[in-house]
């Protein structure tokens, strides 16, 4: 469902390109395949590892950690767990709902969701390849700090 916009844009761009120049379209598609071939093995490796990590991290452990009475601890743990994993939004939100029902604090959840999507220890090898080490390190660390900040503000306001 969420892919519809992206799919629509891709289709439109592709049609435009085909009409204007089938030759350049072919060249683009060849380049796209080359991009894919470069990225695919690494992404698969990352996904394999993250899936393994998720299957090891018990849901009870996560909700206990995120529901810890010590708000600072649970927020920090939320941020840490989120940084190491990546979960599709389709799963992340129902999961957060369950965690909330199981007692996870909203501060911890905010930190978790933000780092889950924005900070990726798992995706950093890929990010390094595209943007270099310095960019990757800075973007991820600053985003991590940002996530904590967001969680703190939410904790104050909610």
């Amino acid at each position, binding site marked *: 469902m969420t892919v519809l916009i992206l799919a629509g844009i891709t289709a439109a761009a592709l049609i435009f390109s085909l009409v204007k120049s089938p030759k*350049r379209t072919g060249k683009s598609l060849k380049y796209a395949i080359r991009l894919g071939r470069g990225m695919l093995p690494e992404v698969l490796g990352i996904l394999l590892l993250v899936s393994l990590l998720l299957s090891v991290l018990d849901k009870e452990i996560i909700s206990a950690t995120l529901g810890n009475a010590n708000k600072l601890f649970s927020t920090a743990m939320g941020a840490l767990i989120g940084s190491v994993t990546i979960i599709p939004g389709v799963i992340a939100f129902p999961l957060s709902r369950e965690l909330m029902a199981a007692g996870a604090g909203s501060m911890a959840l905010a930190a978790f969701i933000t780092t889950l999507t924005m900070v990726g220890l798992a995706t950093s090898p890929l990010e390094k390849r595209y943007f270099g080490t310095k960019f990757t390190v800075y973007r991820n660390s600053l985003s991590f700090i940002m996530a904590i900040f967001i969680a703190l503000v939410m904790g104050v306001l909610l």
Partner: protein
Amino acid sequence: MEIVKKRKLLVISIILYLILLIIKPDIVYTALGYLKSFVLEMVQVLPLVFIVSALITEWVPARLISRHLGSKSGIRGVFYSLVLGSLSAGPIYAAFPMTHSLYKKGASINSIVIIISSWAVIKVPMLLMELKFLGSEFAFLRYAITVPAILLLGFVMSRMKKFGIPLTIDGDHDQSEPDNEYLCLLPGNDCKACGYSTCAELAAAADSPGFVNSKCVFLS
């Protein structure tokens, strides 16, 4: 052996799975369950992203990107970046190829950081889900705080010195020495209109595609 080296991560993961399959198969089955949804999502999004990235690289004039997403694009550039990212689908790593293509065409650091961040965290399609599962108070508050935070992040990163972002990923044109990576953006006619005596000199002095675009008369 070359092939294995490039796929180091994948090889290690597979070996790990095989070992665990023998010692503790339950973990592997659970993991495979998660893997299925990950792969499903990846397969839906990545091909589209690669096609769009390739089309951007082939068709979009650098001039256009520089003007709307370059370092001089101001508020408009920020707005476009936010919108681009929020229209997205898929996990953050899907943003990398596309954003990289935009960077090569002259998008500023500010723009690409905002695009990547909003791609990750502000997804219009996802907002509905978040509203449904976590409530409107949580969702709107999170968005309201996260958007300015993203802008701040972009600003901070844009103020930093040279990142050394590679312009060619393995598989692109042959890996010549890094200082020549900007050379492939240039016409190579040494016309001196940019103020440098050769294209190579401009390439050596450059620190981003945006810089090259703004100097070279053939690109701006």
